[in-house]
């Protein structure tokens, strides 16, 4: 059900959890893909409460990449400095692991943290360049189901949400109160 036209989004508001869960089943049965619909709540319900799929786990990529970069930088800094200016003291090996380990550890931590923070900022918005429909009543306890798809699919989406018991339906493209 993908389309080349710019996406449109509608939100249906539901008063209780069971109706919202049934509505989500109806949306899935109607042929919408998992990435096209989403459930919005003002409270962190346990995962799977509404029968939604568990989000794809990408959270550890940023710290892992950052840690690898930090470790490499620490290693290059310490080993590189000592190899660039070789000074053998008392016949001991040129590369001294204990002091190198401190800097490599701190480099690893610093890289992991900076990448995590960058990842949080990146993931907070960039996967959602198109914000879709929203209603502030989500904050007041309503449960929202948004369907984001091509313009042609919108009448069908509104019909499904209405039939499933939505107390109100809002069109994202007509909204001016949320950015």
């Amino acid at each position, binding site marked *: 059900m993908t389309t080349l036209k710019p996406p449109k989004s509608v939100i249906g508001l539901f008063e209780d959890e069971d109706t919202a869960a049934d509505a989500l089943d109806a949306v899935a049965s109607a042929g919408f893909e998992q990435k096209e619909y*989403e*459930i*919005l*709540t*003002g*409270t*962190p*319900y*346990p*995962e799977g409460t*509404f029968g*939604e799929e*568990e*989000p794809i*786990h990408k*959270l*550890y990529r940023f*710290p892992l990449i950052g840690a690898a970069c930090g470790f490499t930088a620490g290693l290059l800094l310490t080993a590189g*400095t*000592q190899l*660039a*200016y070789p*000074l053998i*003291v008392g016949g001991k090996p040129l590369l*001294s692991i204990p*002091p190198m380990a*401190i*800097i490599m*550890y*701190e480099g690893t*931590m*610093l890289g*992991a*943290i*900076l990448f*995590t*923070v960058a990842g*949080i900022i990146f*993931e*907070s*918005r960039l996967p*959602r360049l198109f*914000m*879709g429909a*929203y209603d*502030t009543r*989500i*904050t*007041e*306890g309503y449960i*929202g189901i*948004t369907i984001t798809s091509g313009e042609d699919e919108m009448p069908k989406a509104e019909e499904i949400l209405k039939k499933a018991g939505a107390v109100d339906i809002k069109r994202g493209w007509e909204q001016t109160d949320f*950015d």
Partner: protein
Amino acid sequence: MSEEAVHNGHGSTNPVEVMNDLLEKGSGQKPLFWRITALLGLLTVAGIVGFAIRLTSDGLGDTPKWGYHMALFALILTAVQGAPMVAIAPRIAKAHWRRSISRAAELFGLVGVVSFLIYIPLIWVLPSMTDGRRTLWFYGELNVPAYMPQIMATLVLVSLVVTGLSLLWVSARPDFAFLRDRSQGRRRKWYGRLAHGWIGSSQQWYWQKHRLGILGAFYFMMLVTVHFNVSVDFGMALVPGWIDALYPVTHAHSSLQAGVAITLVAMYVFYKWGPYKEYINFDQFWGLGKLLFALSLLWFWFWFSSFIIFWYGAKPSEEAILDLLMVGPYLPIFFVVFFLVFFIPLWAMIWNPLRRSVWGPVTIAISVLIATALDRIRVYVGAFSVSQHENKHQLDSIPDAVLPGLPDVLIWIGGIAACVLVYMLAARFIPPINIWEQKELKLYQVHKKFHRTEVQILGKPD
């Protein structure tokens, strides 16, 4: 619902009522708040004046003169930056009682900025390693920059502050969205920016939970690393002959202890003078009180393990360390520290009426905080006072105790006032009780009649 249940914070029956109640409580007009803020602002200015006097009269090169400034930084690092752990550890353990106090603890992450500002002059105050002192950096044997302690301490401190700020922001984002949806005009715009597109999708909730876990783990790792760097390079390395593998861990442990203590005090302020009595109750004081008791017992173990090595070894260099820090010029301070940080918590907390009260753990927390401040003075003023000692392997003579001058007193007053000021302002604009965690609690909490009494049933998400 019974009167007792209502008193214990279970009066609101659903998540929305809880949110409305908390948002209403946070939006009231508080003239006294602004008067206190103004007073704290003036005291902060007094601190800046004290710093200016110290800077112009002594410059940054006279290390012993900056002992009290260093001690203030160490105190803030220890107490304030240890506090977010009170939110992190019980959250990982999925302890429900932490929900009312996790934000109070996380807000201290913002105060970490003050800690960093106070630290900045110390970059220049700490002498370079060209003075020949013994450090962990193998200066002279390896091609290490002479300012390596400053470079590494700055890097790790910045990492800790950034992690603390990130932790607070990630945790507060849903609450910013609640405030955005409930406000108009400029407030809506600002809270909208802080909420950064939060709409409460299941994906956002899922990511937030895991981000809090990752950031919490990093915060703990960085806290330990910062304490390692600071205690070694700004403390032990300045005292000829002070070699103690356990002291950095002792320093980090003090941070956990003082972090719990300062959170208990902040919690008491919210309980006593804030409108949050329904949310902060005996459960929270009981939970943190037990933690403080355990950490106070552990303090003795750390201290004794270090002490016995110096005392039993009894080399002249080791006896000199005991002379300087414990039985010499700082003996009165050491006695008070020992009494306040270990003896009082031990004997007070084994007494049931005190332990099972609200005021008991808070009294112990104040005792621990005073002890931590005195302990940092004992260690860092003492260490800075011998930083220019010629023999870098052993203290040949013990200098007298360094008493604070007027600039030192002003710097301490100003530094502490700045921390309280930042915390108060943060608590004014960021809900001091975590709204989304309270709402989540309502999903898992049921009160049920059980024979002739009423019990609370608490679920866990997984």
